């Protein structure tokens, strides 16, 4: 294994800036590993090695010529295929967009391009980000680098597998109900869902507009903070984008890594794996969680239980709001302007062509959610379903607001279980939805939440979730960095080094 592909992004940036490696060398190292391993891993939907090397050459030339380049210039990157990229195929994991080459860049893609990052490719995902295992991709199965028989989480499972598996130093994911945090948790990565509105959604293929946020999936907390800073900031093209200065996150991560959490008030959410709420949680997950809470205390934090009763209602509320918005967001895929068109043989009328296109272009989970959302918004049912769900959302937000009176952050497991076996939940949507139990409240309230590795259970990674008030993303990074530093120090190595130390694709 090449050293370069196990190096974290911040270190790569240092090496590149210092001239110790070139962008072409780094890019080639990743492309080589992708070529060697991605058939088995299934992380990518599209890789354009030539384009990546061309970009890398430009960065190297600029650096050699003394033209100013930023700290991220030359660092390779993977983007979840939900991110629209000019001229680069973008499918959102769906057959209905097969072959579509967008004429524009998402705001975050443009920002990362301008920062000089090298796009390795687009990563696999559950179709339209609907799923928790990436098995709903219309294209391929993605494997968990820790155990190839297990899922990499979802919907950003291609990004999690690529970064954990050494096929990208870092990646962008999107999170609607947990799609950054849960795959990060089950592959041993750091994944952060920013405050809703703090990263532009312009150019993210919408699943649920009031919930979708893009964020970093990385090997370290500092990397996550650096990548987050690169994509954050107001965007006039997104009406819901918050007009406030780019948050200072890398500095928060560096301060956190010093390990002093004295005075930090931490609330442990009872409803997420606490007393009386342990159904469906792995014992190992709860054990790692409890140990990590104790670690926080040892770093000086004041820990207390906090009850958020409305969190119990998050799952049903989410599965009304997200499908409702999705049913409308996905209406544009009608075969008229782009992507798949089925049955346009001159005999069929417009309605038939639209229906056939959608029938053949969407997978079963997408259809299930479109039907669910269409029903929930129907005349006569709106108040009982969509309306009620919005009220629950308000209650959840109030639970958070009340909690912030007493604590600085709330913590919980990121996911109730470790990665399950491929195929184990495909016929049981309710079990699949339960994977989002812990991540949904922060999504519904629009507050930031990070998942940081907190140990292994059954030889598989467990994630620890830290939630903070809106726009206090820096708190997530500070606390996560403190935990990461303390754990690394105790272990004597970084979390992912445990994966590198074992034979590929097998659980310990």
């Amino acid at each position, binding site marked *: 294994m090449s050293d370069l592909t196990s190096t974290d992004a911040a270190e790569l940036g240092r090496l590149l800036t210092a001239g110790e490696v070139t962008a072409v060398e780094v890019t080639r190292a990743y492309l080589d590993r992708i070529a060697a391993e991605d058939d088995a891993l299934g992380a990518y939907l599209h890789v354009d090695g030539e384009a990546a090397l061309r970009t890398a050459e430009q960065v190297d030339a600029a650096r050699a010529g003394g033209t100013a380049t930023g700290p991220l210039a030359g660092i390779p990157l993977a983007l979840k295929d939900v991110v629209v990229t000019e001229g680069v195929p973008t499918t959102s994991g769906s057959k209905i967009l097969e072959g579509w080459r*967008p004429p524009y860049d998402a705001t975050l893609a443009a920002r990362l391009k301008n920062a000089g990052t090298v796009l390795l490719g687009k990563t696999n995902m559950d179709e339209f980000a609907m799923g928790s295992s990436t098995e709903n991709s219309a294209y391929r199965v993605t494997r968990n680098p820790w155990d190839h028989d297990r899922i990499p989480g979802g919907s950003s499972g291609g990004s999690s597998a690529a970064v954990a598996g050494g096929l990208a130093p870092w990646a962008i994911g999107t999170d609607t109900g947990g799609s950054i945090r849960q795959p990060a948790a089950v592959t041993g990565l750091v994944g952060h869902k920013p405050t809703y509105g703090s990263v532009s959604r312009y150019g993210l293929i919408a699943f649920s507009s009031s919930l979708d946020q893009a964020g970093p999936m990385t090997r370290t907390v500092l990397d996550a903070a650096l990548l987050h800073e690169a994509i954050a900031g107001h965007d006039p093209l997104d009406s819901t984008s918050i007009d406030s200065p780019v948050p200072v996150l890398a500095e928060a991560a560096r301060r956190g890594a010093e390990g002093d959490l004295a005075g930090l008030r931490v609330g442990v959410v009872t409803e997420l794996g606490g007393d009386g709420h342990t159904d469906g949680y792995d014992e190992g997950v709860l054990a790692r969680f409890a140990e990590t809470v104790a670690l926080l205390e040892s770093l000086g934090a004041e820990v207390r239980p906090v009850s958020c009763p409305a969190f119990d209602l998050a799952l049903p509320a989410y599965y009304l709001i997200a499908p409702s918005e999705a049913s*409308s967001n996905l209406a544009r895929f009608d075969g008229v302007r*782009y992507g798949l068109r089925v049955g346009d043989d001159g005999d069929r009328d417009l309605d038939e062509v639209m229906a056939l296109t959608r029938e053949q272009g969407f997978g079963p989970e997408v259809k299930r959610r479109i039907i669910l959302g269409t029903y929930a918004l129907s005349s006569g049912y709106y108040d009982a379903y969509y309306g009620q769900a919005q009220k629950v959302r308000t209650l959840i937000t109030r639970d958070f607001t009340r909690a912030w009176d007493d604590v600085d952050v709330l913590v919980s497991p990121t996911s109730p279980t470790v990665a399950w076996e491929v195929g184990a939940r495909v016929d049981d949507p309710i079990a699949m939805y339960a994977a989002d139990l812990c991540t949904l409240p922060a999504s519904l309230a629009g507050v930031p939440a990070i998942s940081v590795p907190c140990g292994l259970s059954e030889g598989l990674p467990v994630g620890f979730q830290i939630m903070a008030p809106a726009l206090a993303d820096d708190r997530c990074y500070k606390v996560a960095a403190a935990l990461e530093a303390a754990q690394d120090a105790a272990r004597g190595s970084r979390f992912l080094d445990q994966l590198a130390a074992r034979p590929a694709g097998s659980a310990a």
Partner: protein
Amino acid sequence: MSATPDRLVDYDEVLTRYEPVFGLETHVELGTASKMFCGCSTTFGAEPNTQTCPTCLGLPGSLPSANAAAIESTIRIGLALGCRIATWARFSRKNYFYPDIPKGFQTTQYDEPMCTAGHLDVEVDGETYRVEIERVHLEEDTGKNLHVGGSTGRIHGADHSLIDYNRAGIPLVEIVTRPIPGAGAKAPEVAKAYVTELREILVALGVSEVRMEQGNLRCDVNTSLAPIGSLEWGTRTETKNVNSLRSVERAVRFEMRRQAALLDEGQRIFQETRHFHEDTGTTSPGRSKEEATDYRYFPEPDLVPVAPDEEWVASLLAALPELPAARRSRLSDEWGIAPTEMAWLVNAGAVELVSDTVAAGASPGDARKWWLGDLARRANDTGTELGELAVTPKQVAELIGLISAGTINDQLARQTLDGVLAGEGDPAAVVEARGLAVMGESDELVSAVDGAIAGNPDVAEKVRGGKVQAIGALVGAVMKTTRGKADAATVKRMLEERLIG
């Protein structure tokens, strides 16, 4: 669905048994430079699909951001109509599938519109009717479908269809009236007067070009009939795309006559959408509302709510221009004309034209005379609106000036106008180029006068003998010889000098 009956009830007869109620939904394309939710141009008539971007094409990942100028225009329209302006308004999604709506939903306003509860008073035959405005809201226009190969231009039977998204996303304001009862026989005219007055207001506000032929202003007309004395209103039909002022009146009239025939036969009226046919003035059924789609409205999550600041709204109110009704009343006073005469000007669409002509130097009387007389006749002959004639108020003022100066007479002025309308330039230039100026006491005129006396010795003798009124025949002869270019008074004086001394 109800078929168009063969029989229509005579209009006057309808009113002996039924009371009409009508209502209007008027769509106005705003004249903003850019579209409602993106920066694309709104210029009319560009090559198809050249004024588009990811947002107005509904490409995956694109997002809307609301046009502040359109919101301002909507609020100004609401203020001009005496509406309450919402302190909190939201956009909603109206979900349905059709190729001309690129996102699979139209972004509009549903239960939280920008403006509510206004009114507009209109006058018909000296009587004032109050039209209550239910709401004014902001939405986006659709693309335009072109169905190729069919005989009707409709999708049915077409060989293929093309879509132009240049219009998709142009800001559209919808002004919805409450049902308007009590107009009786005047219902069609009140409907027309309402749209006319609304159009005047929109022009005064400068928020839209309101060119009906370009689709800037489009009306849906709801009509129902109830038996006289009934406590309940009848079932209404909605006639779509009624796109001229005259058609608004015709649509109401036709629906009243059609519905009366059905009701007379004991049939029921179906709540349905109907198409208006400009050529025949009739309506035919469209899709039935009773089997219509459920639009599944819900608040648009991609747009933040609009919360107009009260002080800002107050400043918009203070800055509203003089509205047409107030302006008419002021102009009536200034021009010294009666309300009925002002009503004629309004009906002819001539108020602004006359006003501009007066501003360019003509007297109010002369300006009215030309616009309501010769020019109105020409517009009528060619089937165009007065304002669309190829002559400007400034040119009319110049024409009137030439008459006052004695350079031309009324007959020559009409010939001058022919030239102006034919694009030959301003009146003075036309007079020059066509040689239309009234003759002075030139050699040519002297010889024409002498020729008339010599050619009509009997008449000349009568005049000499004291039958002064016979001089008219000689004047006519001179005018004929000079093809109208002579000034009749001058000719008369010259003849008198020669015959009476």
